[in-house]
């Protein structure tokens, strides 16, 4: 197999989004029948890489990429995913792309159905052909057989367990005769352990048939068990490209998170004293789509900054959303010893908590309204601020002047770049929008502030300002902060403790000074001794 030329090779691939380098000079090869494990933290560039490979329009829209992608030695540059499909690349996405009301067979052969021509083809085109259902079923069965799993070809997708849906997706890609390269993006994320095991076996079967597979997973032990070779991406660089034999999970974890020295610099040796316990959470579950929280327990002390880290989809985002009442949740949450009723955002706000949502444009802002509205709204609604009585106190209306004053203050403090307090929120850049979200939360002067992904999608300067602001409010006003972020570095730079969430549970709580590899292992679902110690303490 060694002398075989690669089917797919990437040479010096780079990509930047608006000056932000997300991939830098990535090169690797893939041979027929080989399984390549691709690992990396969120934002390491995996998704972008796959988008380039799959010809997603977003790449071309943002200025294309540099470097060379070739298949069988010929350079390709796909204009659309369909071109990639024609070239033999199959992709299984994280979200199911299946039609729930259709059967397995119908989904496997979707838009590639076997057909029998009718006389009407000549009149109205090929779509007037009759479907050849027996043939379709046969093809579906053969694809399923190739996978080596048990799957009922006549079952309706919506009635299937998740694992079967995942198999259906893969079977669909295999069903394309041309498919020689299969890309699987976190295929095991939604599966139970035994289902995942079956999937891995199926992948090995496929590899034996000569299909090359790129396997993306955060479950490192799966990668180690199934892959022949592994490529580690970090900050857009392919930091490691090595055969998997002899590599341990721990090695990979440290390659994944290992950072250049610059990042660790921020922290001084400040002594931290905290007040009494302010928030305690027991057995919290949150039904947030894509970020399910299963069973979370933790406490926060007054004046502390607690960080939540972990990979996307593991549930860390569900924690603040659940406590603030935005999604269905259960369990016990106590603030200052008083029970916080769940699923009631108003009470949560009234009790003195505030939340900066990760979904800035979706939840955080009134995009079509002025900055004044955005900043003052919550304070107005919850605390009755920025209202003034008119006609002898018969009626109270908005105090536009007060709102303007407040907004101008925050524009000053947070250095928000805008044309004025009446500008519309949608016209601001991402970083400035984030500052508006923070201002909104500060305006209600909360005892406890939840901040979710505060630096997502904003530039470096703004990032620093946001983090410094949080730091300042904590130190100067004693604001207790719970911060959720995918960026471990940023958590380490300002948090007092960092909890890593994996599969809806806290895998461990570490001090920010802990070794990077420890964090990496926790994220991959491996229990470490250090973390267990911290957990107990």
């Amino acid at each position: 197999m060694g002398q075989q030329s690669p089917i797919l090779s990437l040479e010096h691939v780079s990509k930047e989004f608006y000056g932000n380098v997300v991939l830098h000079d990535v090169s690797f090869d893939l041979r027929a029948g080989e399984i390549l494990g691709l690992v990396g933290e969120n934002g390491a560039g995996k998704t972008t890489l796959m988008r380039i490979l799959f010809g997603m329009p977003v790449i071309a829209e943002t200025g294309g990429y540099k470097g060379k992608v070739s298949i069988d030695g010929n350079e390709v540059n796909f204009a659309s995913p369909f071109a990639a499909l024609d070239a033999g690349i199959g992709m299984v996405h994280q979200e199911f792309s299946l039609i729930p009301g259709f059967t397995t067979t119908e989904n496997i052969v979707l838009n590639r159905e076997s057909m029998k021509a009718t006389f009407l083809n000549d009149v109205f085109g090929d779509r007037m052909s009759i479907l050849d259902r027996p043939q379709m079923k046969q093809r579906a069965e053969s694809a399923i057989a190739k996978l080596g799993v048990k799957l009922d070809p006549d079952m309706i997708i919506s009635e299937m367990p998740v694992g079967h849906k995942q198999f259906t997706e893969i079977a669909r890609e295999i069903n394309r005769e041309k498919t020689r390269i299969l890309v699987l993006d976190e295929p095991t994320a939604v599966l139970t352990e035994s289902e995942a095991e079956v999937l891995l076996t199926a992948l090995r079967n496929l590899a034996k048939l000569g299909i090359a597979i790129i396997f993306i997973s955060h479950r490192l032990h799966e990668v180690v068990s199934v892959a022949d070779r592994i490529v580690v991406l970090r900050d857009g660089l392919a930091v490691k490209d090595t055969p998997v034999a002899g590599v341990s999970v721990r090695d990979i974890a440290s390659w994944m998170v290992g950072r250049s020295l610059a990042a660790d610099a921020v922290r001084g040796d400040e002594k931290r004293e905290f007040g009494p316990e302010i928030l305690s959470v027991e057995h919290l579950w949150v039904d947030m789509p894509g970020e399910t929280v299963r069973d979370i327990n933790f406490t926060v002390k007054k004046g502390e900054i607690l960080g939540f880290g972990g990979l996307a989809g593991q549930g860390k985002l569900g924690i603040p959303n659940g406590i603030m009442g935005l999604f269905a949740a259960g369990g016990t949450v106590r603030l200052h010893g008083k029970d916080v009723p769940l699923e009631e955002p108003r009470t949560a706000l009234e009790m003195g908590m505030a939340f900066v949502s990760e979904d800035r444009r979706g939840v955080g802002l009134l995009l079509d309204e002025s900055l004044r509205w955005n900043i003052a709204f919550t304070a107005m609604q919850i605390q009755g601020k920025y209202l003034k009585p008119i006609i002898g106190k018969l009626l109270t209306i908005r105090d536009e002047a007060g709102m303007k004053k407040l907004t101008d203050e925050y524009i000053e403090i947070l250095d928000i770049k805008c044309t004025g307090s009446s500008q519309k929120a949608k016209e601001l850049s991402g970083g400035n929008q984030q500052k508006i979200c923070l201002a909104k939360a500060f305006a209600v002067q909360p005892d406890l502030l939840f901040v979710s992904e505060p630096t997502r999608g904003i530039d470096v300067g703004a990032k620093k300002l946001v983090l410094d602001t949080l730091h300042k409010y904590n130190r100067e006003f004693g604001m207790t902060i719970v911060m959720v972020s995918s960026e471990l570095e940023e958590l380490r730079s300002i948090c007092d403790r960092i909890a890593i969430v994996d599969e809806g549970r806290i895998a461990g709580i570490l001090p920010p000074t802990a070794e990077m590899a420890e964090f990496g292992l926790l994220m991959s679902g491996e229990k470490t001794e250090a973390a267990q110690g911290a957990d107990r303490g």
Partner: protein
Amino acid sequence: MDKIKQFVTDFGWPRVIIFFFLLALFIAAPFVGVRIDASISDMLNRFGQNMLFVLAMVPMIQSGCGLNFGLSIGIIAGLIGSTMSVQFGLTGFLGFFGAVGFAIPFAIIFGWLYGMLLNKVKGEEMTIAMYVGFAGVMFMCIMWLVLPYTAPTMVWGYAGKGLRTTITVEGFFRQVLNEFLAIRIGDSFVFPTGMLLFVAFCTFLVWLFMRTKTGTALTAVGSNPDYARASGISSDRMRTVSVIISTVLGAVGIVVYQQSYGFIQLYTAPLQMPFAAVAAILIGGASVNKASMVNVLIGAFLFQGLLTMTPSVINSALKTDISEVIRIIVSNGIIIYALTRKMKVAK
């Protein structure tokens, strides 16, 4: 040049075209023997008559319920109010305000029920509102026949029961607002001061309401329901409030309409009324999810202007009754334009 272009884009092509069309009609009017003063008087009158219906669109658009195709629910409440007022023999201002007073409680109850219904069907509000409105009108058709009204001016003479299709309010509250402080210039120009004052007062109240805490919350719900929820606002409650206000405005609107028009029109008359109001506010520049007082004023003015001027001018110019067709095409065209436009913005 660019400035003009920008202005036109902001103002919207349909409005600019309709505005110039209206202008052209005014210019053409004297040449085809249509009196301008009579036209303006007529236009002001219609403007006042219909303004509240257009205004009624605002709260629901702002709260994200879309265009209120079910405005007829409010109109029905207004009809109940005015028929009760006539039944009890109230006359003059007492008759008018009596009608409004009887109508409002019904409007609140209907609006509350209607609002709760719309909360159950988020995303499908407009189609359902339309059919709920239709069904309500047909149900009331039965009620008009059955309810025990006895005032001789209202019931069918030969049967002694069942309300007439058209009831005159002459001697009750006909033109009480229009005549109040009315200014007459010449034979054919009347400025209906009272009605316009009343309408302006209602508009001011709505304007004020939109500035209260509740009004602000309501707008936020329409602008981004998730943001509002995260700020502790119950979007269902705000939507219900907006539906109630819209329904009340519809109820008051029909009474204003009746006093000016002089007749109460029952049975299937309210069926098509919401469409005119919807078209008017859209012509005024509102979209399916954003509307302001300016949209209401411009919309009611342009639309009613069009309705007044096209029949008189076009018909005398072309000697044919083509204006009705123009009205259908323009008003429905503008609604389609608005319904298909938002998709682009959402993208």
